[in-house]
């Protein structure tokens, strides 16, 4: 059983944000020779991680969070997402460096274990992660982390409110929305409508370049990061048969009813 949460006398609230560097959402992904072509493509902060960062910074601005730490688990070049995080207002940044060769097979389960290890060290009150990374689309890391540290989870969060050692999370679910209240420490997974992330201004970006980043190699953490899944094959999806243009609504109606027979 995990330690019982007790806010300190000074009401310190530490928030840690997980941030991932991914292929930019606008890149047209190609697969060739059983490999996803990611060399020289544009990389960005995962959109859901941007939302997570924004929420943490807002908590700080509201004087609810007293310290915000950004963490990334990724290749050496991934430190640019931490520069962005600090430009947005994170106090500290931790980079768990993954060798390039290992990065391609690093699974959400391994990342969650790394974050769980950091949880033991940092003892945050709140984790905010993006709900899914737009490359792997697993959408599992927040739940895996929560399970590992035995913390309650607020997934698909569209609104959060911290008060009295708990966080109230409004979640987007299939039929609408759900509100849950979680004891701290908790893990929140940011969804699209949690907030609209700001852009860091140039001055903050310049300042962030000079800030120190706590850099540690992944193999020094004592965490088992070996993959459980082996990728047998990757391919592009089968292309749809080319369609036709119709000139009028009447023609569309006719085609749908008499050719496609779906009306």
């Amino acid at each position, binding site marked *: 059983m995990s330690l019982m949460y007790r806010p300190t006398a000074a009401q310190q609230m530490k928030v840690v944000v997980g941030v991932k560097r991914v292929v930019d959402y606008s890149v047209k992904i190609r697969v060739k020779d059983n490999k996803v072509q990611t060399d020289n493509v544009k990389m960005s902060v995962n959109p859901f991680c941007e939302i997570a960062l924004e929420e943490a910074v807002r908590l700080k601005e509201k004087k609810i969070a007293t310290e915000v730490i950004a963490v990334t688990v990724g290749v050496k070049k991934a430190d640019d997402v931490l520069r962005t995080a600090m430009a947005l207002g994170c106090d500290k940044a931790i980079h768990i460096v993954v060798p390039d060769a290992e990065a391609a097979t690093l699974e*959400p389960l391994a990342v969650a274990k790394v974050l769980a290890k950091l949880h033991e060290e940092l003892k945050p009150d709140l984790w905010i992660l993006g709900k899914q990374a737009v490359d792997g689309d*697993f959408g599992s890391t927040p739940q895996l982390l929560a*399970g590992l540290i035995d913390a*309650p989870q607020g997934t698909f969060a569209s609104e959060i409110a911290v008060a009295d050692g708990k966080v109230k999370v409004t979640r987007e679910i299939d039929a*609408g929305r759900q509100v849950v209240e979680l004891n701290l420490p908790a893990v929140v997974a940011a969804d699209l409508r949690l907030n609209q992330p700001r852009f860091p201004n140039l001055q903050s970006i310049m300042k962030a370049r000079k800030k120190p980043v706590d850099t540690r190699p992944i193999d020094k953490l004592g965490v088992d990061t070996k993959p459980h899944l082996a990728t047998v094959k990757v391919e592009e*999806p089968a292309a749809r048969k080319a369609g*036709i243009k119709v000139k009028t609504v009447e023609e569309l109606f006719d085609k749908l009813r008499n050719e496609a027979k779906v009306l």
Partner: protein
Amino acid sequence: MFRLSSLSLGKALVIAETLEGKIVPATLAAITAASKVGPVTAFASGKDAAAAAEQLSKVAGVEQVLVASGDAVATGLPEELAPVVKTIVEKNGFTHVFAATSAFSKNLIPRVAVKFDMMPIADITSIQSEDTFVRHAYAGNVVSTVKSADAIKFGTVRGTSFERAATTGGNAAIVAVECSAALGKSKWIEDLIAKSDKPDLTTAAIVVAGGRGLKNAENFKLLDELAAPLKAAVGATRAVVDAGFCPNDMQVGQTGKTIAPTLYIGAGISGAIQHVAGMKESKVIAVINTDADAPFFQVADYGLVGDLFEAVPALTKLLKN
């Protein structure tokens, strides 16, 4: 098509999901998927657990039904359900644990898997063997076949990728599962369910969807009017949900719902990859957009370059006659 013989050592658990007292259609698809790896046990929980268990016991292919009731698991909190499922898996020696992909299963499955130190496979679209599964990445642009080395395969299964099991023909025993008192780290406050008289978006045979071209919330009435004679569900792009034109449960796309209706009609939607990811398995796709260069036309079977404010009402009129 792969199917293990009854001599296979696989044993599958399907975590069922209910909505308003009925098991959701996607759960029936998950049962079909699970039956490819071995005999299937279905697990029902929540406030409608007893009713769900009754329905599940009659589903073809379900050999046993486990049911957990009680306050702790009544509202589907993963913190309370995960330990219950963990115990069930350990006691029964399941080799596979599946649930239909949904907000509920995405919330629960990873939390259970990690208790076993196993890597859950998200949104499986095909089962190649007891350890090899197909799923999509990069907003559906990469089809990935993965082989799991885990002793127990945890995964969510795409409801539109498998045939739904028949709701009659089964005759499974129902066994109650004990639940301890709530752990209490989380509390359910309320569900704010969007009221709709329309069919469910993920299972409707026809879906009409709207995007930014609709310009405001009011204009979605045009799509409601088109949907009515078609008995269609109405969907939306992320953009219009973000803008507040539609509630989130209407969002179709990479980070919303995945649908595969017989007919999809999209109006005022440009066809960004992220939206297409959620509907490209639709059998027939019709697109209405004023921009002849809209990417959406590339996936359309029938494309009409025109003003939706004229075309949609005109189509509605034709359907009513």
